[in-house]
């Protein structure tokens, strides 16, 4: 149960080795917190588990293969084996090389599967579990890239647009069952995913995103931008006419 001061008892991190997921875990970490790290088996996952255990968290590692849809049900079963999950975060995703992605059908499909199909499939499974327990939060990491899809990374952007719409809708559907969904639209996050890219203005760290998420859950908000100023920026960009939008250096 999330207590009156906003501290959860259990976390499920799907994409448990992502920088943002781990930043969330560290923000909530306290002795006795139950954390399920769902990710591909890796040294990084083991290291993350060890670190969280060192501050007193009870950590379970669960295998997650985003593209193997048949394995998802078992992953979710294992994740809920220890009891209710208070906050489930869908934090995995692929950026891909934008220019290659729209010309390489395999890469485009991989992005679509990892960033959209898998979150939708897992989202439905999570929704069932959360509906039965009638409390809890699902946090989906969307992106401003999905809010107005642009030429420079439209394959990635389109997958996030789909994910964004699905989880906003899931939030409406689960509301009456006591479950909340938070959709997070970060701008440029300095993480392992974007390590190869140049930094741009308004970029944030994974910990900034994590802080915004924990605040949003305590404040019961269901859609946030990180940083908050991006909300105004995107609100403007959404309405820029296409001929002009095309010429913007985005």
């Amino acid at each position, binding site marked *: *149960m999330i207590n*009156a001061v906003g*501290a959860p008892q259990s976390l499920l991190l799907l994409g448990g080795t992502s920088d943002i997921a781990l930043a969330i875990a560290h923000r909530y970490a306290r002795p*006795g917190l139950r954390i399920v790290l769902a990710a591909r088996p890796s040294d990084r996952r083991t290291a993350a588990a060890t670190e969280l255990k060192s501050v007193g968290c009870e950590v379970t590692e669960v295998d997650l293969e985003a593209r193997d849809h048949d394995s998802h049900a078992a992953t979710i079963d294992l994740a809920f084996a*220890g009891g*209710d999950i208070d906050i489930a975060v869908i934090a995995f995703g692929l950026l891909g090389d934008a220019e290659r992605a729209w010309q390489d059908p395999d890469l485009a499909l991989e992005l679509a599967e990892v960033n959209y199909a898998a979150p939708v499939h897992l989202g439905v499974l999570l929704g069932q579990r959360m509906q039965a327990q009638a409390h809890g939060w699902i946090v989906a990491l969307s992106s401003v890239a999905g809010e107005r899809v642009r030429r420079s990374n439209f394959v990635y952007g389109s997958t996030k647009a789909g994910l964004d719409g699905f989880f906003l809708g899931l939030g409406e559907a689960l509301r009456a069952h006591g479950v909340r969904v938070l959709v997070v639209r970060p701008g440029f996050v300095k993480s392992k995913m974007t390590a190869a890219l140049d930094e741009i203005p308004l970029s944030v760290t994974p910990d900034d995103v994590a802080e915004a998420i924990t605040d949003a859950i305590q404040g019961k908000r269901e859609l946030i931008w990180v940083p908050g100023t991006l909300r105004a920026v995107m609100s403007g960009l959404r309405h820029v006419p296409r001929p002009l939008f095309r010429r913007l250096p985005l």
Partner: protein
Amino acid sequence: MNDEAVPAIRPSRPEDQPMIPQPLVELHGWGRASGTMAHLAQIDSVADAVSALRTSDSRRGVVPRGLGRSYGDAAQNAGGTALDLTKMNRILSLDAAAEPPTVTVQAGVSLDLLMRALLPFGLWVPVLPGTRQVTVGGAIAADVHGKNHHTEGSFGNHARSLDLLMADGHVRKVTPDGDTAALFWATIGGMGLTGAVLRATVALQRTETAYFSVDTDRCSDIDDLMQKMADGDQGYTYSVAWFDAVTKGRHMGRAVLTRGNKARLAELPVKLKRDPLKFVAPSLGTVPEIFPNRMINKATAKAFSEVWYRKAPKHRVGELQNITQFFHPLDIVAEWNRLYGPNGFLQYQFVVPFDQEEAFRRCLEMIVNSGYLSCLNVLKRFGDSNPSPLSFPMPGWTLTVDLPIEHGLDKLCDALDTEVVGAGGRVYLAKDSRLSAATFRKMYPRLEDFLAIRRQVDPEGIFNSDLARRLELSKPTAGGAA
């Protein structure tokens, strides 16, 4: 009325039973923070209660619920069923000739209703918490205490027998002595996790009037207050202090100490003698749900504390006060918790043993210096505890503060927990909405006794609540969270 006519029920196998469709409703505690959704089953009879128990989802279980005055998540049950027992509100029998007199009531009878019914007979409910708007069932489940704890103990001390609806669907009578004593005492303060109390027999006191003879003292700081209480409490049946939790420095913990005894008929002026047992309970209406967060801010909290301290006389003896003035000033307005705004608030009440005055003072300092503001602050000395494994009161000092939910409040509460655990004290479950399972275990050393009883009477954990899940009491056999 024929509550005994319960059909013979086999132990429930909920997976075999059809679910009664009940809409999900949001339930929260008096603090209005962290509400969750549950199926609220309206219980009008014992048969209803049995049927709701049988048809509930065993994975989420059931929790008895009364008037929702516990501050946290004790009467919430996310995804499961809450048994609304407030319609089980009949007073069944009264034995006024016995010594002590006793009354048998259904669990949903409120202390307000009970007092109104008993006063004309010159009978008095022996333990009254800060509000009359609690049910007898709730008073038992939380083992509530009042201003007379140091002389009369808590509510459970006065219960003579309970009819308990158990997880197997049977109703069992339990008493403080004999074969059922262990289950009886586990139910006292057991937060509804041993079963649902459906009716109770409670011992009463006699009174000549419904008034109190009250002495008031203003105390300049916390040391002055604690000294006065330690020296003089034994001379009074009732004793409690309001203290200022905002003012720092030399006058930290300045307080207004009120102590009194039930007034004798001879002490009343002629005017009051005409109707000495009059139940004075004015109502000024209901607080509307319009208040924003941060109604309690530096300005309002300082002003309130100053006025509350200054309006009290420095030293006054023998003032006559009525029930509302002396016991339940907050009952004048309904739904006063709405003043705290939509984020809600929490109440932190702890007790530390008598030899831990230093830790007690450090806790007070922490609160005063934290920047979090509390207006309704209560300090009291407890008397002896009772045999219940989860009952809160123990001989020592107890302190209560009301804190609006704000960013970072968890840090203050965690720091207070550490100090309280270090001093061998504990936090009151009826007020709690945030304790972790690990800290809880350190505060209640007799938890294992409670769990042993629970394993016996409810191995599947049919009786369950958000509080049980948070404190990891829900699956007694697995011994972990579920």
